[in-house]
């Protein structure tokens, strides 16, 4: 139960802190927008409530202070150019605390101290002119928004009834009662165990009478009452147009695992229904079986259609907007920029673009590296920038847009661009290319060298970029998702990295097998089973071999040799049994190494006709894995 609450808090908390952060950045930059101030306030207010509920006190304290500050700003909007950095610091810290909660289910040890710092920073700042309010015990404005008067929260003690109090009668006695709310203080719980005499109520009321009168009416229960003096919201002279909330789609929160399970089942359905084609053939081959066989085929065609639809629908369900992924980067960019001492801001665009969940999951690391790289190597120091006539604050744009059935995600900086001379020199120094070849390359080709493995060991290993995760890893990750990386650069103006990816990934289930020191991928739906066959059960039949699998004689082929390898398979006894033309064929391998889901790209160009090869994919270590077509190999 606690875990569920935390999990929910992490999901919603991130949304709210992203919202608050984005609003604060916009408020800092542009004209003060009342609707935005309001949105920001509500996001912080909700976050505060959840933090309080879950007992994360330092987070709650910081958010209380932020909420107070935002509330004051909301009531008395400041002039343009007001400094929101203290509030932004809270939003950023909340995001970091959410990371800590996700990793360790607890706030870091220094959370209380950090909260103190944030609160001090907020309260030390002169707030907008606010009319001094009488001491308030509780947040009445949240319960009676926009109203004026005395707000009262009366929480009778559990033994109130035994003391002879009737809280209803007390409420009825309030002068100037304008509005009344009554609710249970705690959920009723198991109704079979309901205790009618244990008081479990919260009574909230708004009165238009003067506060002393209200206090007088409640004097006998003063210790159970909190007061707040509210001022009605002043009507705005020119009401700011309220931004329409995002068109509410009918949507559900679904556990990502459930979608994966559904996708899994849909895949298995594909394999299962494929088995029917064969059955239909077998039935047709029987005496008098033609009609039945054809009926089976018709049914199978219908199943085909339905399974295809199901797959497509599940594929749709896996589509998810990029906004949560992109939204993490402005804060990360702020932190990296601060670490490097280079003022920079990261803007995002295109969060509403939707892509397959697998793509979203696989893009965080590559994007993070590109952003780090842009800040570390692309962006010049502030002084160099001003000397060059550029604004001191660098700008990085992280954007997404669709292009047909592809999505283009771009990381564009306005830094110094990529220097082809330096790249060429570095590649030579690292021995990635020899002098002759280097001289022959044009500028675009030289820039491509940054993607070579081994290129990117930085001269100064900063804590930001230096972990040896290079551009080659970025490219490999994107290719693994079925996409490509392109780079465009202009000296003095900046560089743009475009990640072009399919919106939907089509993942094929593969088993990876070893033949000697080579690895190959076999599509799982071509594989009926992986059998163990002892050497003594293998019978030579003329130049070929066969073995008995249950009651059937199955031809045996050495997979490596079928692919042109010289060495025979080791006697590991492992045989992959595939169905070729309705008949089982065994392929002898050395070992089954792995099972993966991968994007298989078909061979094209000169290699398109290669016998026995269905396509290629990238193994986890970045090497190319051939995916085999077993039926071609068997014939």
């Amino acid at each position, binding site marked *: 139960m606690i875990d569920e609450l935390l999990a929910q808090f992490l999901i919603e908390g991130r949304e709210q802190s992203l919202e608050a952060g984005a609003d604060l950045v916009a408020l800092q930059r542009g004209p003060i927008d009342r609707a935005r101030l309001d949105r920001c306030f509500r996001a912080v207010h909700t976050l505060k409530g959840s933090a309080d509920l879950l007992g994360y006190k330092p987070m709650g304290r910081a958010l209380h202070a932020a909420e107070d500050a935002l509330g004051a700003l909301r009531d008395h909007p400041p002039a343009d150019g007001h400094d929101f950095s203290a509030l932004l610091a809270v939003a950023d810290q909340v995001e970091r605390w959410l990371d800590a909660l996700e990793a360790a289910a607890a706030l870091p040890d220094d959370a209380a101290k950090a909260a103190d710092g944030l609160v001090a920073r907020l309260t030390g700042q002169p707030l907008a002119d606010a009319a001094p309010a009488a001491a308030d015990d509780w947040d009445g404005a949240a319960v009676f928004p926009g109203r004026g008067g005395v707000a009262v929260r009366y929480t009778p003690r559990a033994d109130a009834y035994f003391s002879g109090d*009737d809280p*209803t009668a007390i*409420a*009825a006695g309030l002068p100037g009662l304008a509005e009344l709310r009554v609710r249970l203080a705690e959920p009723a719980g198991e109704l079979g165990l309901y205790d*009618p005499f244990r008081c479990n*109520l919260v009574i909230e009321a708004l009165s238009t009478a003067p506060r002393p009168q209200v206090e007088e009416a409640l004097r006998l229960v003063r210790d159970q009452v909190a007061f707040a003096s509210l001022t009605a919201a002043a009507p705005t002279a020119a009401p700011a147009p309220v931004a329409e909330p995002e068109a509410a789609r009918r949507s559900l929160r679904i556990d990502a695992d459930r979608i994966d399970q559904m996708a899994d089942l849909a895949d298995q359905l594909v394999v299962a229904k494929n088995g029917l084609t064969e059955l239909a053939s077998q039935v047709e081959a029987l005496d008098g079986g033609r009609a039945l066989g054809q009926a089976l085929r018709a049914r199978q065609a219908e199943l085909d259609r339905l399974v295809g639809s199901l797959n497509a629908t599940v594929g749709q369900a896996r589509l998810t907007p990029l906004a949560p992924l992109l939204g993490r980067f402005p804060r990360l960019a702020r932190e990296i920029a601060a670490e490097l001492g280079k003022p920079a801001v990261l803007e995002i665009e295109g969060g509403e673009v939707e892509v397959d969940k697998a793509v979203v999951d696989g893009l965080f690391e590559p994007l993070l590296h590109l952003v780090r790289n842009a800040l570390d190597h692309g962006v010049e120091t502030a002084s160099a920038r001003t000397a060059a006539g550029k604004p001191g604050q660098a700008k990085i744009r992280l954007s997404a847009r669709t292009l047909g059935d592809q999505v283009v995600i771009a990381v564009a900086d306005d830094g110094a661009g990529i220097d082809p001379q330096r790249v060429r020199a570095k590649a030579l120094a690292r021995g990635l290319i020899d002098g002759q070849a280097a001289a022959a390359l044009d500028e675009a080709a030289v820039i491509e060298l940054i993607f070579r493995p081994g290129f990117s060991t930085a001269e100064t290993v900063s804590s930001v970029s230096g972990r040896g995760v290079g551009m080659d890893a970025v490219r490999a990750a994107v290719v693994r998702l079925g996409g490509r990386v392109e780079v465009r650069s202009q000296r003095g103006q900046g560089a743009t990295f475009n990640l072009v990816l399919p919106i939907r990934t089509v993942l094929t289930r593969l088993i990876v097998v070893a033949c000697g020191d080579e690895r190959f991928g076999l599509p799982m739906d071509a594989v009926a089973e992986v059998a163990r066959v002892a050497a003594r059960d293998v019978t030579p039949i003329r130049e070929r071999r066969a073995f008995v699998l249950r009651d059937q004689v199955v031809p045996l082929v050495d997979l490596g040799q079928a692919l042109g390898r010289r060495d025979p398979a080791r006697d590991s006894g492992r045989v992959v049994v595939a169905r070729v033309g309705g008949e089982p064929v065994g392929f002898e391998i050395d070992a089954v190494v792995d099972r993966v889901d991968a994007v298989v790209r078909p061979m094209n160009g000169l290699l398109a006709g290669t016998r026995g090869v269905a396509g290629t994919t990238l193994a986890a270590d970045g090497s190319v894995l051939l995916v085999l077509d077993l039926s071609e190999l068997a014939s």
Partner: protein
Amino acid sequence: MRIEHREGVAALHGHCRVADAETLASLLQQSPGITLDVSGCESLHAAVVQAILAFRPPVVGAPADPFLKNHLLTALAREAAVD
């Protein structure tokens, strides 16, 4: 308090005092689908209100007392509409 039963409805009459909370809670527990008619109520002790909030039966009727009619029942209706 006096309770009048019609089909599916329990009408509460008079002053509903603290002890009546137990009677009402039993009734609501045994007849979960029952509707409460409060038009005859002259007052509702908080314990009775609490029982109504806990068991959440439908509540109908407009009592004469202005506090009950304008404030308390409105508050109950509000809670009933939440989630």
